[in-house]
């Protein structure tokens, strides 16, 4: 069947057989491979996208069920050369090594900061507990995002 999904503000119409996940369709049919295929069973968060306002594992969403939806993927956060503050924070903190988990962290952290621009360390840990990183041990990710939260708090004062 033919489905249409609005991804990062652009309408994509593709034909699907039926069993494909949203992740598969993003990566294989829409030329958006930024969302990553690390576990494909909803455990690692590497495929995180925002689907109609909620962060979801795109590997667990049937593409046909996303028909008519609005999706934001990791490719939709930087404005050309201007990075999203969360992307800058991850780089500055040293939170990017192999980078395979990074797209998921960008999406999940950006949504956290959208809702709560000044999260505490515990709030960051809890919000990102569904995203697995195998390289950093999480410390550098945490420090980068704590600095962003501190900057946001300072800017609001």
């Amino acid at each position, binding site marked *: 069947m033919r489905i249409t999904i609005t991804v990062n503000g652009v309408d994509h119409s593709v034909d699907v057989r039926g069993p494909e996940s949203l992740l598969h369709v993003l990566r294989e049919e829409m030329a958006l*491979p930024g969302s990553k295929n690390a576990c494909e069973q909803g455990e690692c968060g590497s495929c995180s996208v925002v689907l109609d306002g909620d962060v979801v594992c795109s590997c667990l969403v049937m593409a046909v069920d996303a028909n008519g939806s609005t999706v934001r993927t990791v490719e939709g956060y930087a404005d050309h050369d201007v990075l999203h503050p969360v992307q800058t924070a991850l780089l500055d903190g040293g939170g990017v090594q192999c*980078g395979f988990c990074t797209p998921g962290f960008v999406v999940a952290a950006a949504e956290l900061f959208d809702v709560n621009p000044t999260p505490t360390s515990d709030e960051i840990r809890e919000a990102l507990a569904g995203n697995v990183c195998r390289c950093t041990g999480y410390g550098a990710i945490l420090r980068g995002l704590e600095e962003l939260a501190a900057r946001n708090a300072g800017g609001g004062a």
Partner: protein
Amino acid sequence: MTFTTQRREVRSGVGTSADRPDGIPKVKGNFAYSSDLSAHGALWGATLRSPHAHARITRLDIGPALRVPGVSAILTYDDVPGRKVFGLEEADQPVLADGEVRYWGEPIAVVAADDAEDARRALEAIVVEYDVLEPLVDPEEAARRDETFRTMTVRRGDPEARGEVVVEGYYDTGMQDQAPLGPEAGLAIPDGEGGVDLYVATQWSHVDHEQIVAALGVPPDRVRVHLSGIGGAFGAREDVSLQIHLCMLAMHTGRPVRMVYNRAESFVGHVHRHPSRMWYRHEATRDGTLVRVTARLLLDGGAYMSSSRAVMANAAYFAVGPYRCDSVEVHGVMTRTNNPPCGAMRGFGAVQSCFGYESQMDRLADALGMDPVELRLRNALAPGDHMPTTGQLIEGSLPTAEVIERLRAIPLPSGLDATHPLHLPGGTGLTTSPGDVVRGVGYAVGMKNLMFSEAFDDFTEVRIVLTPVGVEIHTAAAEVGQGLITVCQQIARSVLDMEHVAVIFDDTSQIGSAGSTSASRQTQMTGGAVLAATTELRDRILAEYGADRLDAQGVWREGELTVSVDELCQRGPAEHHVRFRHPPTARPDDNGQGDVHVDFAVAAHRAVVDVDPELGLVRVVRVDTVQDVGKVLNPRALVGQIEGGIMQGVGLAVMEELVLDGGRIRNANFTDYLLPTFADAPDVVAEFVEEPSHFGPFGAKGAGEPPTISSTPAVAAAIRAATGRPITRVPVHPDDIIGL
């Protein structure tokens, strides 16, 4: 021509936290990993795998599968055109099953089809009948039957030496998985002239290349292996997984073929950390001086050899740890079974024995009534001492006592933080009453060789090219995420005084091997090669022009810019190539004696845990470390290696284990193979000791593995301290704490 005469200083050289050049594409989702690659008209590859740990194949019929729509090729053992086996140390593993399957998940056939779904249907249509055989899965039984990849004995000193205080124990470590987040993946594109280009995530493209051309039976120049983006490795990408299969399918069909393992397949598609069973006896004087250490180490290599012989050697050579002892006997046995093949994982044999000897050091301290940190200090190995196992004289730096003393001086964290359930054992499951929680603190010290050992001809090639816009570093060294790419740039910047440095990953036809990204070796090897090549190029340029300085603007003499960089690039010299080796190492003698290593590093870890003794739940609160790093080249990247390595050590201590049943992996997925998450991550306080290595750029030592070695026994020791339970096996399960 106008020359400016203002010198500019380089900003992102050695010692700075220079930015990763691949950082921006990675945060934008634009970085191309091997699983992201595609080509016009590419077919999908897929692999049929054995459902048995040991069986004879009595019938293999691909006929029905060939009739599945969309299928282009199905290849089996008979279709392997050249050498039908491959392997890292010795070619002993069939490219596709040779009529017998020896482990669960062994590849039997590969398929190329129009898309992933067609390929999956074709796999289902292949008819295989098996005569199921009894798998040999007990390593002790395998040892009795002499089913081994290597047995070795390390003997040193007086075998009659006896201590007044003796402690003995058995220790076990489970089978850990590297679990890099990027799955095995690649793209093979036939070149139309009988050759193939393979784009793949690997730790060592040239050793893949050797095995591919042998299996294809083609001259080496027919195959080019290109490094693609690598989503972590940790040892899992040192062996061939899908490389040969992809090239066979591409050559056979004449079309590009992609293959991406899913997570379940990844778990059987790469080797694992060897599980171990160890027996130790430590003997000491009443004042805590080690007199004799004897050990028997039994590691299971699984069905095929991979790097098992080298892992066995490492486990045995580091079986005593960074401690002086003049009487040592270590027996090592690496078995061959029908369990999943094991090979390289961060720490490479030194992890297993460290859990053994550090558990023993605590047991000995207890028997002596001595502080465990004092016991370690009393026996700390130092330059001028001899390795307790091999007898090798320790040269260069080995600040064992200093890492221990500085670790002890780091302030401990305050008591239980019950402000948020995340800090409690059991976490937000709210299972634990804060009043029941007990805290424990444990120390451990570990040691490892850096770079390859035992007379291996360990080299790396680098080519430096000067261009009008900067410097190119050409290498085949794999950047797996650790930041080698940044360190190479920093070294070139500092030597050449040029800010713009690009690292170009050459394919196997363009440059010689860089060796493996493993054994904590690339900073010293490829980093060392960059230092050598840039220094030699600079010196050639200065000599050619009678100059005293080179930078991005050109060549300077006595404060005057005399030759612009444009002119320099035209006139040369503007290119320099090195094949760089570390000082040679020796083969061991029959008693395991000899100068088998080139360099060492030590690290010490202190773990603080909170335990719920009723439920057997552990929260690792903090892991502090002091590591011998020689020289800090990039502080941010170094902390990344240390914190990430500790997390894998914590994983082995409390949660990570492949569970086997008759040779089958029962938890080949991220639901049941538990990886530490943000909720499990301890805080880390990391300090460095900078005593320069006798070999290494600017005195730097490799830093990737030491964090993973002694962090595991430190956590185990902390759990022992909290609970009083013996804790002789990792990962520690709730049952071990509750005492069921």
